[in-house]
């Protein structure tokens, strides 16, 4: 009986590997300052591809509002993890975006030209309507290691939930503040 279940396990198993991430906490203001662009948009497509040893999920975002930066009406964002070549990689601490879902994304484009989500889960706000019909932007807390960049000490993450307009206002205020 035991060997039978083992055989079925071998036959059915999907290559699946998981890794984890250490994050550094960034305040909303810091994220606004460090982001190369901040967009509100909807995921229109996603696909996976390997880059070196890692698989990345690529998301195509139809931009409906751009709160920082300039660019086209579509942006392609990469997140570590996904399935390619029959292998699934998963990284705790990295966000998964849903096709058709709407987000506010804090984005960062590095010298490689790839556009990442800043702070991974920290840089993703779901956009949904609350019971009263108001648009809400919300971000879950992460359990991954967060370090305060000023002190180098660990700090805790907090879930964030605020009206979309309020988020927009805070970002505009942060961007308008003189650089420190």
């Amino acid at each position: 009986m035991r060997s039978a279940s083992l055989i079925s396990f071998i036959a059915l198993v999907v290559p699946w590997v998981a890794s984890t991430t250490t994050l550094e906490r960034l305040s909303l203001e810091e994220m606004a300052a460090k982001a190369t662009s901040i967009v509100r948009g909807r995921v229109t497509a996603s696909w996976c591809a390997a880059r070196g040893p890692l698989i990345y999920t690529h998301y195509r975002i139809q931009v409906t509002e751009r709160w920082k930066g300039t660019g086209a009406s579509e942006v392609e964002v990469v997140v570590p993890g996904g399935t390619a070549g029959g292998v699934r990689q998963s990284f705790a601490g990295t966000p998964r975006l849903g096709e058709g879902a709407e987000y506010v994304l804090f984005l960062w484009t590095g010298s490689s030209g790839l556009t990442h989500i800043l702070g991974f889960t920290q840089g993703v706000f779901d956009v949904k309507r609350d019971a009263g019909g108001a648009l809400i932007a919300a971000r879950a807390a992460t359990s991954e290691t967060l370090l305060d960049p000023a002190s180098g000490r660990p700090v805790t993450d907090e879930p964030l939930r605020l009206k979309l307009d309020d988020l927009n206002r805070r970002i505009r205020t942060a961007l308008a503040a003189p650089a420190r």
Partner: protein
Amino acid sequence: MKIAASRTLTSSALALWLAATASGYYHFVHYPSRSGPFVAIPEKFDLSALPNRAVPYLISERGPDHLAPNDSLAGVISQIRLAANVWSQVPGSELRLVFGGFFSPDTPRSTPAIEILFDELPPGVLAMGGPVARAEITSGNGGSFVPIQRSVVILRRDLTDRPSYSDGFFLTLLHEMGHALGLQHTATSSLMSTDVTRAVTRGRPLTADDIAGISLLYPARDFGSRTGSISGQVWMTTGEGVAMASVVAVNPGGHAVSALTHPDGTYRIDGLSPGQYYVYVHPLPPPELGPYGTILPVDAAGTPIPAGDPFDALFFPGTRNPQFAGTITVTAGQVTEGVNFRVQRRAASYLYGVTTYSFPGNVAVKPAFINVNGPSSRWFLLAVSQGMALTSGGAPLPGLSVSLLGGGAAVSELRAYGPDPRYLQVGFTFNPLAGTGPRHLVFTYNNEMYVLPAGLNVVNRQPPFIATVSSQVDASGNRVAVLTGTNLTADTQIYFDGVPATVRSVEEGTMVVVPPPAPGGHRANVLAVGPDGQTSAFLQGRSLPVYEYEPADPPAVSLSLSALPAGAEAAIEITGINTSFNENTQLGFGAGDVSVRRVWVLGPTRMLANVAAAPNASPILTGLTVVTGLRYFTQPFAFQIEPANPRLPLISSQLRDAATGLTSVYPGALAAISGSNFSTAPGSVAVTLNDQPVPVQSVTSSQIVFQIPPNQPTGPALLRVQSSGEWSLPVAVQIDPAPPVITMLVNASAGNTGRAARPGDLITLTVRGLAEPDATVAPGSVKVTVGGIEHQALSVFPATEPGVYYVVFALGTGVPFGPQVPLTVSVDQRVSLPFYLPIQP
């Protein structure tokens, strides 16, 4: 009041211990079925498939782009090597990581390895790590597992904000390397806990939980017999088993070891040192159960199996009051069963993830360390919770209580911390007779209980402090570093970046050390690490003193052989200029498919190494890296793997004693060498040692037995085989002195009773040939193996007869019983023939 709960429990021998390793620790787990009985199948490296049973780690040739002041690539490499060393020296684990050199990510390879990469990570992301490719499920001696084929540790390319000499960099690197080896997060203040509750320092980077976790994946032979287990089940009061509940066994004065429950609520905590333990169960912190937390176990289809609902944490046998918690006795080689919990479901948990800080000086230290010999005004820590505020309105949250598990200290005061009332200030009183070590905090609020293992570390002195570091020349003309400061004692270790320095002398406030080799002009950050886990960074933060090396010419290295056919092994001589090769020198070829089997350092500019190319290696050009201390030499395209040569006799450098099968051979012995492409035609095979023919005893297609000349000098010798006119490449083989011989055994504990030996008996062996006459033998180098159980010698001292030594050891628990139990003595690789003794319970 303590409850002797262990009397109600049952124990069973760990006869099939290895068949169920990794039963519940937080590994990356697969279950063959969604129904019980549940057997967790972990992901891990298959050591049996790796050269020398060691996991290679390769460092990307593209290092960091930006570094902080006083940081360097040499410093970064030294911290990576130090981290690998930490994981390679875990007591109870046979895991060894081996330096593989700089590599190009484009280099194809077939050998599993860990890759250290420096990549473009967005702001807010410091590091990533874990397995990224694996093979199908397989079985080994330790049961089924999923072989990891490739793991990565990804560090930032921009290290400006995280210098390699900072605690944060090193502990994050070590943590991610733990993921790469197969460990997940735990909730027991270990290295593998998230940094919120991680209670480790550079001085003591691993806790018992980390040690158990890695030892369960890669157990040393006697790990199961030296440790015990606790098992049981966790149910909701409504009857169903609770999946992924964290069950923790915590020693009052030591660290905690934990396991997660299976989907049916059953669990087993393995790897516990014998002793008394409190046991408690708690739900994983809510963020760990979210989409970004712990990777859930998966079923045969790869579908995650969810965790159970939140519940009220409880001590065994069902109390939130630590005063009423019972202790469980753990015995080596035994499972204490029936440690069960019935827990009350709750809507949500809020009390979790508490971080503690203390102030030995002006720097906040995490986890909290309190010096009981320091001023009582510093006998406090600060606490802040991830889940809820611990203070309210400038005062402790009403209803919140904090206590300590076990004795020796007590909470004397709770108040909001004046400078920042969001932090809870917890004051303590200490029993002056109680010892030092970790203490465990228990927080309760309403019906919630939260235990923070090692939330407080009691020490009896201040951290070390380095005031100045200066370079001087000693009487022999050698460069030394002179350190002045406080709490620099004989048991303080000094690190130059990530490399330990050799301590030459210690006097009041002054320490003289020999700096490790480094490039000319290198600026090394100097750190002192105390024996209690405190470091000079506790007082100095990142502002460590710097030692600047004298200018020096760069090193250069050349190889006697620069190409090897796939599947072949050969001895390569490495000659250096401006090098200082020593016993810690490592070399790597930047490809897991090229492995270094053994190295002999023949002098500061000369080494001999056996290098092997994997049989299925692709023909490639690869690099060479040689590292000694902080000095490294790297040369791209220095070495080539060629296509396999089907006619070449292939030989393995691992000789075996043909009579005993042991891996140590000596002058006069018959030695067996294994390989392939050996002709079995009479007279068609010849063997030479240092180019001198030796008598061949027998030949098969895969093995040659030959005699080592009685006058052969000990040490490395070059061996070659000629078969059908074709010469093999030379390999270096080690010729040892003859093995030790046990001539007598005296059981002092049995006296003249003539009874069989019993566990605990003090036994003295008389051994001939243990070492050269008049040599001093360190007890740590001598092992006594009884019935397969390894014992450390307690003392080794010479007898009056030259060349004869006495070896004293205590017969351990876990040895098998019987009339003829084999006993051997070993030193280095030399093992005696067995001596048989009767053992009774």
